[in-house]
Structure formats: C-alpha cells, structure tokens
C-alpha cells in the first residue's frame, strides 16, 4: 500500500527475530524485576553461540573434505556455506522446533542468495572499473570524438609517444539522443497501454490480443528488432517520403528499433504495478465524483510510481546497452552528430563493441581497449544516474510514509 513503510516493517521484526535467534537464554532473566530463573518464553531456545559453533564446525569439516579432493579457497567457502545452512537447520530442529528451523533455513538461503548475487556484481564492476579508469581519466575523453584518430596515432600511444587521444563525445551524444528518443517513444505508449489494460479494458478480447503480442515481444532478439526498424524506416523514407536511398540510416531509426525492445518491458512491469494498487483507493476517489482519468493519474499512478519508475529504468537499461540493432539502423560514425534525423550516429555500446572487436590499430589494440572500457564505465555511470533520477522522481510522487 505504502511504499517505504512496508519493507521496513518486517525489517524491524526481522531485527527482533534475528537477535532472538542468537540471544543466550541466560540473558532473559535480566528483565528488570524478574528474580526467578529462566524465562519460560525463552526456554528451549538454542544458546546464542550455536551459530558460531556451527559455523566453526562447518569450516573445519569443509577444510577436511577439501583436503581429500584438493584444497582451494572458493570450494572451501562454498562447502562451508552449504554445511552451515544444513547444520543450522538440523540443530535448530533438534534444539528448538521445525518451524524455527525452517524460518532460519529460509533466512539463511535468502541472505545467501544475496551474497551470491554480490559476487558477479563485484566481479563485473571491478573488471569494468579497473579496465575503464585509464580511459575515463584520459584528458579530452569526453570532449573529443574519434575523428582523425587512426592506427598510426594509436601505435604511438601504445609506444608511449602520445597520450591516449580520441574520445567518446560522439558516442555519448548518440547514446543520450537515441535513448532519449526511444524513451520518449516507448514510455508514453507503454504507460498508456498498461493503463488501458488495467483500468479501461475490462479484460476484453482486445486486451487479450495486446497482452499476447506484448508477451511475444519480450523474447524478440535485439538484432531482429533492429532489422525490422531498418526495414520499416527504409520503407517510410524511400517509399513514402521519397528520400534518397540510405537516408533511413539515422539515429531515429535506431530509436524505433530500441522502442520495439523497450515497450514490452514498460508495459509488463507497469501493468503489474498498477494491478497491485488497492481497489479501495480507486473506489474512494470514484466516490468523490472524480473522473476515472484523474483517478488514474492522481491516485493510481502515484501509488504505483516507485514500481513504474523501476520498470522504466530497467527498460532503459535494457536498451541503452544494445549493440546489434544500432549497427543496422544508425550505422557507425567517427564524429559527433547532433541530428537524430540525418546522418549516422555512434552510440556507446557500438563504440565499445567496435573498439574491442576491431581495434583502430590491429597491431596495437591497447588504446582501443582503454577507450572501450572507459566507455563501458561511462555507460554504467549514465544508467546509474538514470536510476538515481528515477528514484528521486518516484520519491517525489510516492505515498508519504506512515504506519498502519
């Protein structure tokens, strides 16, 4: 119902219950004024050190097992974790009861899954940051494009005769413009469509058809989306607008292709977010004689805004890193182009991809690689800022925090 309160509510409980897990029975009698022995309320709880003991045991047994099959740190930690989770479950079942054990088991699994998720996160981020920093910090990295940069200059850079020259201005502009255009196309369409599905359609057959197509759209390979957009724009430009051949290669075509990929994400996530808005609120508003469209805009959307913002961010993140559909729609450019409707454009992912796959100097790829990773880092930072922006927007419109 309310955005911020909910996560925290069980959180509080969580804290209480977690500490309960590890609190020594003996502490119970410290309750002021209670003189008698142990509290019945904490009777039968396992002592606080159980978790540590089990963890220690798991470490040792895992080490022993690893000794048998050849030691390595990763394996050791994995086996320890598994042993710990299982042993805690068994111990708690024996010392307390199955329900607590199950609760503990799931808590461990959930925390475990979080820790597991951190591993690739850290690894990827580390890879990008460590490879990307030199490029990112090169002077003029943001201010220059690749015009005039050739294998000759890159060889000099690799030899140490020149600083890293050439930058991502063109790609950065391209990414921002194309993504912005795609967002402007798909977010309104996606939002309105999901509003139609949830608020207006009454589950009629048209809504079923729309849902059906949106579902299909989620699995469309990005390259196919690009090919489609390029075909469509070629048709529009050449057949309808009578423009010369090749004029369909422009930033806007790429935006169209990306929209095909973005729309299903926006529709589906928004649809789910709107669906969980309590009907109570819609009724309260309707009973005040408020028109449905106003109810939708002022009551339903704000209630779901945080989820919608997340969905849109995901959708943007999904397409901002696309390579293949851009290549076939917007081409590859070396210099900065601010016009979405004319001439080719570069984007960061294409830049990264090209620089990695086909270094400017095949015999001295270091410079290209530095630029590529630097660009990757920039791309991540852009989406990060976007994410932050989405959260701020969500925060402004989101329900005020409150209790019950």
């Amino acid at each position, binding site marked *: 119902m309310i955005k911020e309160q909910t996560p925290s509510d069980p959180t509080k409980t969580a804290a209480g219950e977690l500490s309960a897990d590890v609190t020594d029975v003996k502490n119970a009698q410290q309750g002021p004024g209670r003189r008698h022995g142990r509290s019945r309320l904490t009777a039968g709880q396992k002592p606080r050190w159980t978790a540590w003991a089990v963890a220690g045991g798991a470490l040792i047994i895992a080490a022993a097992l690893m000794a048998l099959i050849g030691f390595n740190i990763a394996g050791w930690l994995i086996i320890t974790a598994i042993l710990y989770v299982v042993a805690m479950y068994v111990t708690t079942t024996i010392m307390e009861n199955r329900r607590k054990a199950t609760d503990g088991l799931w808590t461990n699994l959930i925390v475990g899954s979080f820790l597991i998720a951190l591993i690739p996160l850290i690894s990827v981020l580390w890879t990008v940051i460590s490879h990307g920093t030199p490029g990112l910090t090169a002077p003029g990295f943001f201010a220059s494009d690749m015009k005039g940069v050739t294998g*000759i200059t890159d060889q000099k850079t690799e030899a140490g005769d020149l600083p890293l020259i050439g930058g991502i201005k063109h790609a950065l502009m391209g990414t921002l413009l194309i993504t912005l255009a795609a967002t402007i196309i798909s977010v309104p369409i996606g939002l309105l469509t999901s509003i139609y599905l949830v608020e207006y359609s009454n589950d009629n057959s048209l809504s079923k058809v729309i849902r059906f197509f949106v579902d299909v759209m989620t699995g469309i390979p990005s390259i196919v989306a690009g090919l489609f957009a390029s075909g469509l724009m070629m048709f529009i430009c050449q057949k309808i607008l009578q423009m010369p*051949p*090749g004029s369909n290669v422009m930033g806007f075509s790429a935006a169209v292709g990306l929209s095909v990929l973005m729309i299903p994400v926006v529709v589906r996530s928004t649809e789910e977010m709107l669906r969980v808005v309590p009907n109570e609120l819609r009724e309260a508003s309707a009973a005040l004689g408020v028109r449905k469209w106003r109810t939708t805009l002022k009551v339903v959307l704000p209630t779901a805004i945080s989820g919608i913002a997340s969905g849109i961010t995901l959708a943007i993140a999904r397409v901002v890193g696309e390579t293949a559909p851009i290549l*076939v729609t917007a*081409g590859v450019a070396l210099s900065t182009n601010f016009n979405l409707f004319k*001439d080719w454009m570069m984007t960061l992912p294409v830049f990264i991809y090209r620089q*990695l796959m086909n270094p400017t100097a*095949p*015999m001295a790829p270091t410079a290209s690689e530095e630029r590529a990773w630097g660009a990757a880092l920039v791309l991540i930072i852009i989406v990060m800022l976007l994410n932050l922006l989405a959260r701020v927007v969500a925060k402004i419109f989101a329900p005020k925090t409150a209790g019950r």
Partner: protein
Amino acid sequence: NNPGASSSGAASGSAAEGGSQVEGTLSGSGATSQEAAVTAWQTGLAATAPNVSVQYNPVGSGAGRKAFLAGSASFAGSDAALKPEEQDEAKKVCGPDGALNIPAYIAPVSVAYNLKGVDKVQMDAETIASIFTGKINKWNDPALVKQNEGVSLPDTKITVVHRSDESGTTKNFTDYLTAAAPKAWTYDVVEKWPSEINAESAQGTSGVVKLATTTDGAITYADLAATGNLGHVSVKVGDSYQEPTEEAAAKTVETAKKVEGGSANDMAVKLDRTATTAGTYPIVLVSYHIFCSTYKDQNTVDMVKAFGTYVTSQDGQKAAQEAAGAAPLSTSLSDQAKKSIETITVAK
C-alpha cells in the same frame, strides 16, 4: 581544412583536382576487417579532398554488399569480389556495366599459434588441414616433428581456435586448404567454419587472437597485422617454407589471374593457392572496394573517384599499411586500379 593539404598533393593529380572541389558525404558499408584501414583513409582523404567525408559501416562483407546492391551504400568493402549472381543484380543500381571490384589492400592470413618456448614452426598444407580438422591434436605429433627438425615440440594439446562468425578470413583459409590439401580437408570452401569440427571459437579477428593468446597450445588463423604476440607458422610453398609477410602476400596477388567473365575494368582476381613460386605466401586475402561503373549524379562520381583514387594511391596504401598493417598493392596493381576508377562516370 589546412594549407598543408595542397602541399602534400604529391598524390595523383586527377584525384587532387577533382577532390578539392567536390564536397559531400560518401557512405559505404562492408567488411569489418577493413574498419581500421578505412579509418586511416577517412583521415588521410581529408588532406586531398577536405570537403569529402566518408562514413563506413562495418556490418560485414555480405551485409555491405547487400546494402550496396540495394543502393543505400555508395560503395561496399568486401573480403570477396561480387559473386556472379550479385554482379547481375548490381546492374539494377549501377547500370548495364554493373559494378567494379577494386582491390583495396592485401592481407596475409597467418596461421598463428601460442606455444610456450617455441618461436618457429613449419607446416605443409596437409598438416595444417589435419590440425584444423582435429586429426592431429598434439604439438609433438610425428608429422610436426618431422617438419621441424631442431625444434623441441612439447607434448601439449593443440587447441584449435576458429572464427565463430561467418568471415572472409575463413573463406580464404578454407579456400587454401581445399586447394592445397584436398585429401585432409574434406570440407568445402566455406565462410562459416564447419560445425562438425569440434573446436574452440571466437567472434572476430580480435576475438580469435585474444583467445589464442590466452590459451597455451592454441592455433588459429587471422589477419597477420592483428596477431600480436602469436607465433607464425611458416607454410610450405614448393620445396621451402615461407613465413607470412607483406611482400610475400603482395607477390602472390601480383601473380594471380584476373577472374574471367567480368567487365574489362573489373579487377577481381583469382589467387593460386598452390603456386610453387618461391617468395609467395599462399594464404592471402584480397579486400575489395566495390564501386558502381556509373552513378546517378556527378557529385557522387567525383567523391567516389576522389576516395577510390586516394585509397589505391601510394599514399593511401602507405596510410593503411602504417595504421592497419595492411600489405600495400604493388605499383602495377595500384596503377591498374587507378585506371579502372577513372572509368567511372555518370549514368546516361
């Protein structure tokens, strides 16, 4: 854009005259492998024709040829000349004389390996084919030991790394194997590595090079310029073994025959993979620029001429050599190319 442009105009005359007046954007698309060279030419052309900018979309040779045939690219960069049926199709956009294949540069394809402590290996075509089909899978296989006296080959597993994408390099390499080792290489001339052969693969030239560089015992085939620290197999030509070099590659192309059936100015060549002439290296890739013999408007013709002439000029060839490691065309080929490009005109 700078006065130096005219002073460096030692380049071929007509290009300079035409080039300084024309302006506009010339779009091409095609082979990924040309990307580095085209980048160098884009920059170099700015000196002779400051107002012409060239944009090049490295979508792949096939897609590039398709874009060219569809009229959305003014020229295509391609690892292979137009196929006959494509040449027929080209008449639609280029007029009755069709399109011209002009060699843009030559790239020796190195059979490159990564083997600790071994910096010189010699093989004949048969051995190469056996390795790439998996029949030979140890570096100290007798067939190898026999050809490499004095080299101590370790008992390392051979990891074959091939291109996972369709590629002109693969096509030229398998063309060589088919011609030179028909017994061991039972597959066809293919752009896509036969999936029946179970081996490692990676996308793109840099992909295979990177993978081979990080895998001990790996062997692959790639554009010589991009092979970095890998060792190069010397390939048996006639009775001796020839290392891949730019000169050897250029020599191979010079002795190649022109493909028959094309128009007089078409310069598509058919390489002789089994030539025994000493000093030639048989695994060579000729990268073409494909132009129309006629264009609709004079400006495009001028731009195409400016670009084409520059690319095939000594300057252009040098720029590509320095920047991208491409082997330059020989002087005679370069002259021939210039003549062919001169014939491009406006459609009547």
